[in-house]
């Protein structure tokens, strides 16, 4: 069974769904379910496309990291689709393309192929965000995204010119030997991906997109896409570019500012959706920071935990906004009084993001932080062992204050806001919340899983 099915099947289904409009929603559900289940049965070996061997031809890398991220991203994708498809039947084929793009992102072992998938998933994302009915914001997103991927391509080409390869594993060996010269192209690629990953100076599109998001686009961009891009970042940072020195410092600086500014901006916001979107900027910063300093395994889980939480948070807030007609916190206050189940799930998700015990977020955050303090951990950044944990902790404090503010407003004010959630949405949200708790409680198992992800050096296995 080949990994290529994960990309080919959705693409094929996309063509079919264009031809046969009627079956398209069912096809979408079927295919996304397939994409969720399939990784469980996949062999752990590279897949070579087109008959060329790996340095020359395009290959798909199937390792534990890819499998984990595939399961997480496709799982979230499936849930998002299952919950929202009834409302957005027209988007079926686009969502199928998006699925193909995302799977490609996570699987491919070729840098140019990665660019193609970035563009495919990107175009699908632009189309998904057109459902916000804010064409100007989507346009901003498109411009930013296109410039970003162009920069990625530029950097990539410069690298190709130097190394003569596009294969990630090959590139990794090249970069290792020629650290100094790869800095500039790497930075271009970093900026390009940073646009999609919501890193600070390059993320002006986020507000327009997520600040006006609907049920589908909010969960899709903030949860599925964010997780996927973060993991792609991880793939590059852990597998290809192990950066150090001045470059690492600059990047870490950007990330530190992203984290702190993201939290501060969320703190300064009064709209529920804005709070969540700025918070997800900060979370993205943390994830990529963890990848940068070489704590890849827990960063992966950080991204996944964050994706699950954001799915719940954005899903609930968007639904509330739809009903109430505004996402001002004061308008939404008291809306959980009549929706306790949803409220509890929302709270679990929020507490998990804050890293409070019993929840998955705690396990992830703690272990990431412990990673900084492992006696044999040597940071590739000056003072990295101590400064970045402090940044993360300070960010967590700010984060806590505004989330608690949001939660107390939603729970403890009197109001007669009544919002009807579809039963399916309720189940999904509750199941995810339970999953957060289960992973939070059985951290031993999670740790085993993580331990199986990393080899002694803390770098992903590129088998």
């Amino acid at each position: 069974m080949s990994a290529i099915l994960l990309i080919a099947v959705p693409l094929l289904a996309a063509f079919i769904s264009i031809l046969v409009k009627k079956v398209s929603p069912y096809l979408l559900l079927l295919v996304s379910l397939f994409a969720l289940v399939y990784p469980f049965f996949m062999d752990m070996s590279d897949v070579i496309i087109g008959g060329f061997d790996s340095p020359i031809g395009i290959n798909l890398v199937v390792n534990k990291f890819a499998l984990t991220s595939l399961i997480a991203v496709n799982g979230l994708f499936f849930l998002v689709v299952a919950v929202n498809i009834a409302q957005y039947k027209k988007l079926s084929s686009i969502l199928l393309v998006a699925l193909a793009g995302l799977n490609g992102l996570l699987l491919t072992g070729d840098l140019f192929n990665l660019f193609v998938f970035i563009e495919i998933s990107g175009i699908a994302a632009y189309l998904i965000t057109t459902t916000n009915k804010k064409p100007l914001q989507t346009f901003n997103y498109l411009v930013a995204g296109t410039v970003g991927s162009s920069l990625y391509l530029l950097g990539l080409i410069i690298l190709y010119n130097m190394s003569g390869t596009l294969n990630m594993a090959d590139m990794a060996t090249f970069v290792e030997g020629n650290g100094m010269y790869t800095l500039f192209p790497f930075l271009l690629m970093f900026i390009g991906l940073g646009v999609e990953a919501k890193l600070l100076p390059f993320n002006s599109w986020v507000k327009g997109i997520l600040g006006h998001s609907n049920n589908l686009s909010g969960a899709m961009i903030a949860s599925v896409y964010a997780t996927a891009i973060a993991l792609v970042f991880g793939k590059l940072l852990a597998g290809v570019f192990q950066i150090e020195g001045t470059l690492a410092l600059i990047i870490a600086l950007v990330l530190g500012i992203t984290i702190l500014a993201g939290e501060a901006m969320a703190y300064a916001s009064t709209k529920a959706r804005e709070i969540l979107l700025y918070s997800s900027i900060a979370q993205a910063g943390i994830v990529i920071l963890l990848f940068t300093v070489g704590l890849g395994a827990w960063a992966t889980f950080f991204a996944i935990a964050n994706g699950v939480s954001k799915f719940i948070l954005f899903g609930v807030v968007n639904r509330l906004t739809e009903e109430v007609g505004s996402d001002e916190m004061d308008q939404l206050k008291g809306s959980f009084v009549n929706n306790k189940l949803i409220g509890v799930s929302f709270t679990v998700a929020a507490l998990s993001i804050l890293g409070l015990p019993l929840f998955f977020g705690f396990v992830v955050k703690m272990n990431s932080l412990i990673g900084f303090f492992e006696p044999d951990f040597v940071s590739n950044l000056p003072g990295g062992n101590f400064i970045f944990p402090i940044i993360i902790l300070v960010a967590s404090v700010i984060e806590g204050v505004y989330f608690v503010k949001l939660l107390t407003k939603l729970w403890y004010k009197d109001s007669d806001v009544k919002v009807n959630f579809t039963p399916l949405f309720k189940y999904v949200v509750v199941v995810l919340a339970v999953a957060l708790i289960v992973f939070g409680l059985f951290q031993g198992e999670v740790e085993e899983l993580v331990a199986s992800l990393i080899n002694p050096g803390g770098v992903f296995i590129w088998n």
Partner: protein
Amino acid sequence: MLQFAAIILLMLGLYGLLTQRNVIKIIISLNILEIGLNLFIISVGYFEGGLAPIFTSETPANPNFVDPLPQALVLTAIVIGVGTTALGLALARKIYQKYGTLNLDEMGEN
């Protein structure tokens, strides 16, 4: 020589993105950026005296081909670029329908 032109085109594209306030102009700038990028990619694979990487009956036994890989990449990039442009133009129409103008400054929303 064309390599420099490509870089200048890239810069011009960025300059256009920075200065232009019209949606169509922004898309045009994006296109210029992409053309510059494509030229650049091709120029990376090109060297003076290289041959087009196509086997014909006249191809010498030990051909001195230019690098074919960038050309393949550019083909993909062009197609993707068109997709983006088309989407951007569709959005421009939507924006026009919504705001009655294509000028970003004249739209009330910010």
